[in-house]
């Protein structure tokens, strides 16, 4: 009986917090409509396939030069013959530009950069290019991520052009070397990022700011002057937030599925696990950063201080490999990166449940750590 009554408290708290959210039209806009509009805008802007420009790394090594002295198989000689030289700026390596005209599908321009293997991989990681060309044992080797449709496209175009124009002159003088690297359609990349961002924003603004606001209005003080269970208060906030985030993300996915034909390649259980772990991580952080202050302006600053760096660094909109190499390990440990990468691995790369366990465990640990610390220092009055 007593348990039933206590559950009623929880139901009333959940009901109150739920109503508080859905009765603010702005919350509905920022939580549901804004991510959809963003997906629509950015999806249309970056998914269009006209006037394509792609960068290609061409490995410059001594072996190739020696071998090709007496050989027709030379990418370098081919570029000299068929491509336009671009004047290098400063000490930058020589660039070549090759435009493949197509009246129906639009022109495709390839920018070739002669570079070392190491530098080519850096460019690939940063998302600057998706394919690398090399010459070994009288073969042209194409290195790219087989899951990357954009790299496939580049490979087919280049292979056809090289073959038609006499290089290689014989069959089997080219080979494909698979590389496992991120990258698909932009919208495929974007939607999991938007979901991760939605979870972060919803938790940070909805929970942190909401709690600071309640503290500044002395509502927290009034509530704890009753026999209300404090843990119920926080559990109800988290429950409502997770439920809202599930709805928001499901609607965003539904929209992306209908309009952009996004699919979930990997494990649904893994996706759910990592999604809930992400919510707990950001819920914990939200409680931690709002555990003391009652000033909404300070709260505003605190939320921004947490949200803004991750918005910029964690690769929600564009690959974080554009940032310097030294910063990548740090960026990869950010909660938003963990969540976005985890979601992407399931959405795009077809990761299974077991692959979701590690990032989910890290996110869960982050959440529990910050939740415990926040609860310890929480100022109810």
């Amino acid at each position: 009986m007593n348990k039933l009554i206590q559950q009623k408290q929880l139901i009333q708290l959940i009901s109150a917090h739920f109503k508080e959210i859905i009765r603010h039209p702005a919350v509905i806009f920022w939580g549901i409509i804004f991510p959809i509009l963003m997906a629509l805008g950015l999806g249309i802007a970056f998914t269009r396939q006209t006037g394509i420009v792609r960068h290609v790394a061409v490995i410059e090594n001594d072996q190739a030069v020696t071998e090709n002295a007496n050989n027709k198989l030379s990418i370098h000689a081919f570029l000299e013959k068929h491509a336009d030289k671009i004047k290098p700026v400063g000490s930058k390596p020589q660039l070549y530009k090759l435009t493949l005209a197509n009246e129906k599908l639009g022109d495709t321009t390839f920018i070739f950069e002669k570079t070392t293997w190491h530098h080519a991989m850096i460019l690939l990681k940063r998302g600057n290019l998706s394919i690398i060309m090399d010459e070994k044992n009288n073969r042209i080797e194409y290195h790219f991520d087989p899951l990357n449709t954009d790299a496939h496209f580049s490979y087919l175009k280049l292979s056809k052009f090289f073959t038609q124009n006499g290089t290689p002159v014989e069959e089997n003088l080219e080979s494909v070397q698979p590389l496992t690297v991120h990258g698909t359609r932009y919208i495929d990349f974007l939607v999991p990022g938007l979901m991760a961002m939605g979870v972060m924003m919803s938790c940070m603004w909805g929970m942190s700011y909401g709690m600071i606001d309640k503290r500044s209005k002395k509502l927290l003080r009034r509530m704890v002057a009753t026999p209300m269970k404090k843990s119920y208060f926080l559990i109800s906030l988290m429950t409502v937030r997770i439920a809202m985030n599930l709805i928001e993300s499901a609607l965003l996915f539904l929209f992306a599925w209908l309009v952009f034909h996004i699919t979930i390649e990997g494990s649904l259980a893994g996706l759910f696990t990592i999604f809930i772990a992400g919510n707990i991580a950001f819920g914990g952080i939200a409680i931690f950063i709002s555990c003391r202050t009652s000033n909404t302006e300070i709260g505003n600053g605190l939320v921004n201080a947490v949200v803004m760096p991750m918005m910029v660094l964690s690769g929600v909109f564009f690959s974080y490999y554009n940032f310097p190499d030294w910063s990548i390990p740090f960026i990869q440990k950010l909660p938003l990166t963990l969540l976005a990468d985890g979601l992407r691995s399931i959405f795009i790369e077809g990761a299974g449940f077991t692959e979701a366990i590690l990032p989910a465990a890290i996110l869960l640990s982050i959440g529990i750590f910050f939740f415990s610390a926040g609860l310890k220092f929480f100022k109810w009055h």
Partner: protein
Amino acid sequence: MKTSPVIEVKNVCKSFKNVQAVNGVDFQIFKGQSVALLGPNGAGKTTLMEMIEGIQKPDNGDILIMGRKWKGNERQLHQMIGLSLQETHFIDRLTVSETLKLFASFYKLGKQRVNEIIQIIGLAEKTRSYVVNLSGGQRQRLALGIALLNDPKILLLDEPTTGLDPNARREIWSILQHLKKHSQTSLILTTHYMEEAEQLCERIIIIDKGQILKQGSLEELLKEDNDEKIIEFALDEPNLAIERVSNPSGFHIQWGANRDKGIIALNQIERQLPEFLTLLNQNNLRLRHLECRRKTLDDLFTTMTGRRLHE
């Protein structure tokens, strides 16, 4: 026969940085008693109230509620106490009924008690209104309703009518007067409205600068001073008047800020008032306003501190 006190405040001190908010306060409150903590803004009333509510801890001294300290007894004491903070904003987009249901759930109370409270606070027509759409008086009545939900043994109200218009204030008073008649709830309220203290409380504790200046019933507080009557006057020519009237012997005049109005405390009004009027007549001074009234707590406070309650 008096039983053990419901609230005991023993030599309580509290300071914030360099400000001594409460300095050695002692008092007891018994079952069914209504007590007003009266003082100007910054007197230390709210700090004292928050220590009684268990929100703040005293630096020194003890506070016992029903014989228990707050530490370790929070759950039981919260069950017995109803309170209304000086300023509380409830969840804007919950209705009156939903807000009461939420708080009722904390006390494990049902819909019946919520309906009773709605009737008591007179918000039956507003049950479906969002809190954000209530007037100041209605919100304060809702806060009072929440304080009364658990039928508290002790009711603590921190400035329950501050900022309300006279009608809204009387509505709150009416609810509390009804409560006094029909329950044994002990009440402490802080106020800087003398009239509120008079209307609602049989005992008044006057506080200033964190200390109790005087305490007792209204009659006891006012009887202690011999100057029982007050005359307030205003003259047509204030500048000239000050020179002429401030000289006569026998009258101690407290001039207002603009030096055109004065207050005189009289202990023998039947003899002294005609003398004062004669003095004005002899000096060709014309009265614009004259009021003769009994001494109030505000006058008492002014006598003790040189300041008014509302300053």
